């Protein structure tokens, strides 16, 4: 157990350092999302949409920052580690790959949180968003479980993307846009209709955003997909399912790698 935690700490470390040691990245990571957020805000304003929509945009921006980290910092990470030559040392070490993934996730969450706070503070100040949190504990719980589900999904994809090889990058980019749309980053998912929004719900971002919206902007409840408590339960189930699948795919990836010999060789 203590070995597991040491490995987690070890792998989280470079990300924590990365987040703090390169302040210029922090600036970019905060400003660029804010820029695209303000575009949405102005569109909504010109359409005379309800004011809550501007709040949705900021909440969406924050959660998107995490989602991007899941895609680029988790899902494609093993592929990247193979290219840089670290993966063989991770596999060879007595530490489990699970602990390495957990370290990446925690480090990634930390790094992204430093950006998310920036987006939150600047965004609410710039657009004078009015939030009235009804149940802060539930909100926090949903936020944490939503992150857990998202990063668990990233862990699952990390092995799959490695097996898919070079296509991983393409796949990652493919996941970017449709998911903004499906998860209703900037508008309520319910607008998608019942079937599509159900399908979108296997993406943790969808349920998490929907739940958090209701808790932060009570007047938006009429647009909501379902009750936040129900969403909390679904998110917890998603977390467990994704973690389980992540473990299954890890073993599969390691096995295929050892049998075919394609996973460790850089140019293959």
């Amino acid at each position, binding site marked *: 157990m203590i070995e597991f935690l040491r490995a987690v700490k070890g792998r989280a470390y470079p990300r924590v350092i990365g987040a703090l040691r390169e302040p210029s990245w922090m600036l970019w990571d905060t400003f660029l999302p804010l820029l695209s957020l303000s575009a949405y805000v102005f569109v909504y304003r010109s359409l005379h949409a309800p004011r809550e929509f501007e709040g949705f945009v900021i909440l969406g921006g924050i959660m998107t920052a995490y989602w991007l980290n899941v895609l680029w910092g988790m899902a494609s990470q093993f592929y990247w580690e193979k290219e840089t*030559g670290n993966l063989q040392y991770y*596999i060879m*070490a007595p530490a489990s790959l699970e602990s390495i993934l957990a370290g990446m996730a925690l480090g990634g969450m930390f790094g992204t949180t430093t950006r998310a706070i920036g987006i939150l503070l600047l965004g609410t100040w710039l657009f004078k968003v009015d939030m009235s949190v009804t149940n802060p504990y539930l909100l926090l719980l949903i936020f944490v479980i939503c992150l857990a589900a998202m990063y668990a999904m990233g862990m699952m994809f990390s092995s799959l993307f490695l097996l898919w090889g070079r296509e991983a990058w393409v796949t990652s980019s493919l996941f970017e846009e449709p998911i903004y749309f499906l998860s209703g980053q900037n508008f309520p998912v319910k607008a998608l209709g019942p079937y599509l929004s159900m399908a979108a719900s296997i993406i943790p971002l969808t349920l998490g955003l929907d739940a958090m919206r209701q808790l932060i902007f009570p007047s938006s409840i009429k647009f909501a997909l379902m009750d936040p408590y129900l969403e909390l339960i679904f998110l917890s189930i998603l977390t467990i399912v994704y973690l389980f699948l992540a473990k299954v795919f890890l073993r599969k990836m390691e096995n295929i790698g050892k049998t075919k010999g394609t996973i460790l060789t850089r140019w293959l």
Partner: protein
Amino acid sequence: MYAIEVRNLWRTFKTRDGVVEALRDVNLKIKKGELFGLLGPNGAGKTTLIRILTTLLLPTKGEAYVWGYSTATEERKIRPIINMVSGGEYSGYGLLTVKENLWMFSQFYGIPGKVAKRRIEYLARRLKFEDILNKKVRNLSTGQRQKMNVARAFLTDPKVIFLDEPTLGLDVEVARVIRDFVKEWLLENDERTVLLTTHYMHEAEELCDRIAIINEGRIIALDTSDNLKKLVSREFSLVLRIHPKINISWINKIEGVQKYLTREEENGLRVRIIMSREESIADVVDGIIKHGAKISYLKKEEPTLEDVFLKLTGRGLE
């Protein structure tokens, strides 16, 4: 029990261009405390063998054991007691300092922070890189990077260490430091075992207790360096520099010429001939002059491992 034992090991790879037989019926028994060398040219199968022994790859046929444990089924027992360095390797994160990178890797082996810190300082002293401990990895030179990689592997105090062409592309000085360190490390504890692969014959000759010569996936000779050289003891080698470049395939017809190797040089050739008849040296010299070339250097040398390889395979090591 052997530190490393390999029995009838085969490994094939399926590629787009067909099937590659990277290892063919390899058998090895390496004793605890040995510094064992695997000498062979590029593509001989050295890295493939190391990957199997370090639990990164499964054999197609046959078995491999490290410290008595099967590499295929008991990797959990093997991983804590081994480590590996490979030449030209990149590991770690450019953003971290050397010290931070080393600490990170130590954490995957469950080494307590304080112990890790002490070992890092010790290795930095021994490998002479104390000056770069706080330098970011992305700013290191090739030699500095490789010293860090060596430290990364030795940091976990392995029983068996695999060095896969560890001095590849390094300048003489850094290679010297690394070789000396490996030799001393082995002496400190008589169970420590090293498997070194290389295509530098001098490195194999200087470091290794025993050497296996590997070519096209097969081990074609295995003995101490001195005994291997006895394979060519009746022979000597003749090294020549000639210019301009001429075709010298006629050399094979001279009596006593066994094998020869050429390497192109600036406006000429470097030729290495294994011969068993001193009287024929004159014929070689005459022939070259008759073909219109000049000889700028000629030396009769004691046989080296390269000559052993040349005699066994008909080709050079590099």
